[in-house]
């Protein structure tokens, strides 16, 4: 039995040898046949880009190239002076074509063979290698064949170095890399050659896959390191090995950033650029030669972290710690996608099923793709890890929470900015930030990181207002009342954003059909109650603020901005809620000296009307639902505001009901006739408009007769006001006043 098998295997070996031989011969035959036509077609292709009259030259050059390649393939016949001249001519031809248009894969194949087989002298080999510029691609076979020449030992050390540099530079142009990867062991063995080592390291860095990382290789690399010290190229390869197998190796980088590989591309820089242009889209971005931590790291401040947000690393550490990996783990780990390789959204979509989570969840904060990911997986575990990290980091970094690190104020506010960016990106607040606000808002001076803090407030996730009020909003109110008008306006602004976020969130929530209904769930009523409490709170703040700041127009603008959001809740968010403003806001706005405030008020009244009518319509449609019916009180209140406004602006009959002013006071003020004196003409904020209107009509007039604005002139006056930009007033009058009642 035994001898037979040996014979058989020997035969088989023989056959494969023959096979490979025959394939080789066939290949060369094919090459000779194809050479001409191929190079022609490539040259023709090249021609398209050239100006017409170059065509002839190129054709000639193409033929010359064929002859030159043929010449090199045959090898030197004899060394004579004339021979040298021919050699020089052919070399020139090859160089010219290569640098101009690049060489076809077949030509590269032949010439590489020539250069490494040592048929010619060293100088020639170098020149040939230097012009191995692909027109499109380099075939993998050519590389494999070329590498096989390295084993024969026919080429000099410098040629080898040049070849490796060429291989690294052209790495992206090689059509496949599977066969080359099979030569990993050979390349690895070449590390022993001191001259080659840096280049081989670089090549291995490009080639290494997870399955190439073996304990014996790690040991070998460490031996080399022991022999040569910390060489950057070895360091880079070791780091790569560590990232694949953290349980085998440990490296920590020095803080200064470093370039790990000498730039091998230098020789071919322009040619590579041209080739990339030719292949546009085919080849990826030029490989960056800096490694991970080359991302700028601020100075190490304390042991906890180099920067506040940890660097992105895959979690292979913990994964590999469980020594006995099950089969499924093995399969999974092969297909998993490390987060640090995630570059664009397309990659995220392609690998979303097998994306590894980072080892430190905090690192997602600076990576929007991963933020996307954790937001859509909605894994509580992931969120909890993020929660812990963010809560602790906020607490640690907060400069007044910990009294003794004032110097890091800038860093802290930058950190808050990145949190806010992430919240805006996700359109969702983080619970950690809410918890942080509970803890530190009572201690806040209202000044430090003001804009960031108020933005954090506007991203507080939806919650029960009564519960949050003592923790947060009571403290905010204290600061609000004791701070400047600008602070007040900023607070109102962020409360407006908070309201908007809550409303958006509620309206999304209401229209999402829940899968399971549980008896524990809250009713919409409770949620709406929370929103209306928030609005009441802002109403209370505003009323007091208006008094404190003596009806400041600036402040009123911010208050009315808030109510612009409030008045449209029903229509814009489809939520059964209408909350009116308190009289403390309504009256100062109505009698404001600024027309834009009055205009804004009119607009809000108009929107309230739209919302209330819509609500009424819905109520009529479905009588059964009683919970969300608006009480009559709201309608009464609105109507009261409305009649007051119509009285003050239109009918000159202000305060028909509900207000009594002592006639003596009016007499003292010289406005005994007040009932006729308050309308669109005499309103303090519109008075100047009325005067301008009259002057426009009769510019020569020395005195203007205000009471002349009536009848037709009243309508012209209205048009004049509308043309001055009082669009809110226009909407209000159109919707709330029947024009038959023109005075």
């Amino acid at each position: 039995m035994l001898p037979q098998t040996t014979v058989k295997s020997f035969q088989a070996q023989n056959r494969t040898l023959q096979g490979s031989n025959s394939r080789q011969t066939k290949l060369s035959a094919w090459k000779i046949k194809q050479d001409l036509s191929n190079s022609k077609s490539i040259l023709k292709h090249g021609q398209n880009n050239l100006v017409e009259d170059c065509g002839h030259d190129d054709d000639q050059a193409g033929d010359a190239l064929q002859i030159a390649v043929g010449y090199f393939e045959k090898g030197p016949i004899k060394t004579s002076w004339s021979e040298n001249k021919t050699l020089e001519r052919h070399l020139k031809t090859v160089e010219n074509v290569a640098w101009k248009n690049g060489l076809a894969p077949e030509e590269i194949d032949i010439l590489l063979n020539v250069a490494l087989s040592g048929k010619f002298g060293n100088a020639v080999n170098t020149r040939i290698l230097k012009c191995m510029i692909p027109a499109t691609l380099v075939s993998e076979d050519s590389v494999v064949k070329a590498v096989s020449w390295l084993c024969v030992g026919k080429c000099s050390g410098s040629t080898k170095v040049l070849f490796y540099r060429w291989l690294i530079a052209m790495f992206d142009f090689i059509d496949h890399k599977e066969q080359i990867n099979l030569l990993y062991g050979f390349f690895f063995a070449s590390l022993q050659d001191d001259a080659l080592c840096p280049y081989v390291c670089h090549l291995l860095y490009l080639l290494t896959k997870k399955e190439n990382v073996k304990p014996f290789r790690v040991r070998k690399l460490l031996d080399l390191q022991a022999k040569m010290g910390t060489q950057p190229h070895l360091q880079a390869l070791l780091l790569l090995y560590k990232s694949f197998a953290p349980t085998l190796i440990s490296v920590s980088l020095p803080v200064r950033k470093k370039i790990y590989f000498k730039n091998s591309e230098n020789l071919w820089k322009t040619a590579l650029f041209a080739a990339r242009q030719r292949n546009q889209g085919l080849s990826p971005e030029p490989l960056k030669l800096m490694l991970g931590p080359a991302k700028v790291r601020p100075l190490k401040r304390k042991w906890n972290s180099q920067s506040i947000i940890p660097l992105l690393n895959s979690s292979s550490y913990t994964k590999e710690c469980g020594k006995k990996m099950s089969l499924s783990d093995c399969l999974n780990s092969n297909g998993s996608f490390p987060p640090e390789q995630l570059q664009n959204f397309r990659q995220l979509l392609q690998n979303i099923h097998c994306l590894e989570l980072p080892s430190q969840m905090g690192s997602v904060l600076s990576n929007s793709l991963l933020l996307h990911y954790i937001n859509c997986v909605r894994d509580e575990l992931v969120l909890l890890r993020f929660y812990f990290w963010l809560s602790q980091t906020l607490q640690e970094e907060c400069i007044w929470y910990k009294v003794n690190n004032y110097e890091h104020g800038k860093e802290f506010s930058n950190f808050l900015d990145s949190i806010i960016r992430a919240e805006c990106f996700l359109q969702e607040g983080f619970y950690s930030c809410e918890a942080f606000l509970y803890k530190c808002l009572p201690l806040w001076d209202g000044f430090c990181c003001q804009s960031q803090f108020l933005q954090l407030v506007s991203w507080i996730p939806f919650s029960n207002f009564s519960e949050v009020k003592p923790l947060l909003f009571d403290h905010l109110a204290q600061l609000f009342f004791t701070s400047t008008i600008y602070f007040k306006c900023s607070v109102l602004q962020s409360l407006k954003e908070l309201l908007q976020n809550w409303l958006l969130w509620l309206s999304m929530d209401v229209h999402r059909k829940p899968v399971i209904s549980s008896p524990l769930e809250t009713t919409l009523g409770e949620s709406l109650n929370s929103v209306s409490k928030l609005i009441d709170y802002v109403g209370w703040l505003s009323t007091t603020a208006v008094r404190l700041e003596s009806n400041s127009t600036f402040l009123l603008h911010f208050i009315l901005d808030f109510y612009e959001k409030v008045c449209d809740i029903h229509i814009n968010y489809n939520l059964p809620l209408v909350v009116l403003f308190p009289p403390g806001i309504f009256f100062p706005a109505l009698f404001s000296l600024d027309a834009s405030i009055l205009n804004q008020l009119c607009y809000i009244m108009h929107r309230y009307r739209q919302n209330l009518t819509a609500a009424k319509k819905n109520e009529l449609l479905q009588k059964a639902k009683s919970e969300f019916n608006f009480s009559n009180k709201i309608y009464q209140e609105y109507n009261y505001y409305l009649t007051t406004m119509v009285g003050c602006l239109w009918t000159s009959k202000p305060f028909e009901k509900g207000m009594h002013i002592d006639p003596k006071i009016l007499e003292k003020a010289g406005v005994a006739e007040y009932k006729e004196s308050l309308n669109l003409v005499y309103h303090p904020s519109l008075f100047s408009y009325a005067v301008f209107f009259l002057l426009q009509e009769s510019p020569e007039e020395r005195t203007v007769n205000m009471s002349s604005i009536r009848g037709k002139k009243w309508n012209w006056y209205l048009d004049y006001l509308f043309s001055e930009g009082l669009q809110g007033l226009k909407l209000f009058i159109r919707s709330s006043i029947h024009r038959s009642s023109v005075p």
Partner: protein
Amino acid sequence: MDSYDRSESTPEQSASSRLKNYLTGATPLQKRLESVKKQTSFVLTPPQRKILQCSQLQEDVDPQKVAFLLHKQWTLYSLTPLHKFSYTNLKEYSRLLSAFIAAEKQKGLAVEVGEDFNIRVIFSTLLGMKGTQRDPEAFLVQILSKSQSSENREGKVLWTGWFCCIFGDSLLETVSEDFTCLPLFLANGAESNTAIVGTWFQKTFDCYFSPLVISAFNLSWMAAMWTACKMDHYVATTEFLWSVPCSPQSLDISYAIHPEDAKALWDSVHKTPGEVTQEEVDLFMDCLYSHFHRHFKIHLSATRLVRVSTSVASAHTDGKIKILCHKYLTGVLAYLTELAIFQIE
């Protein structure tokens, strides 16, 4: 109008799961937030704590290991739960951490995991060091130097740190089983080693270390609780240290009392059996203040308490602690666990 009908009926039947979760506190995150809310709002209400008792479980602890923990000064840290930590991998962790330390000490030089370094890292559990059965097992990490001489095989201990959780129920309740909650970390040795070990833990288990400082308020609690402990014999005097902030150097006032006198004072203010209340703590401290004022005319209440030492343990406001009494080891740790949990909430 049909569409409106639908949308109107949805909220009636049910709001979505998140809203639901929010108000019932169903998810772990919600639970956490709830407990933060509770903590924040109850901070002013006077708490009550049990007088330190010797835990039954503590009896199982290897006495040699306990002796090792006593009489050493520990720097305190709070620690968020460890993600995917496993007690079965302690050997593996030792290998990885020692390689990590070796790599950190010679920045830029790669080292093989499991190679022979001049240091050794040992992870070991402190069996029984817990308050309740639910508390996860405490564990110890030691960095040892390898001595050349063969007679001393163990080598010198360069650094020690241990992780524990005594009566950590409030934290355990809110965290799923993928986490191991050991909120209290105690380190003894060079700060640089603490930094390296801490960094490794943070990278490996996605946790977060923060220094745990003890406020004057908590120090007076410690003073009262430790004075209240029944001792067979006292090994140290009861001593308080107050700091008066003034330039160029701050002034420290030390106040030492015979431990039996302190106990007598405590007994006179202590009313609630088995418990220590806020009023009792305040009263105890007030008595000390007034006594001091009578003699030296200095209002200690206007200064800052920075250190308390008793026969049970001594604690410094910087977050340093030394435990002296074996009997009340878990009792002291329980209070520290409570403080650590408060910090990470």
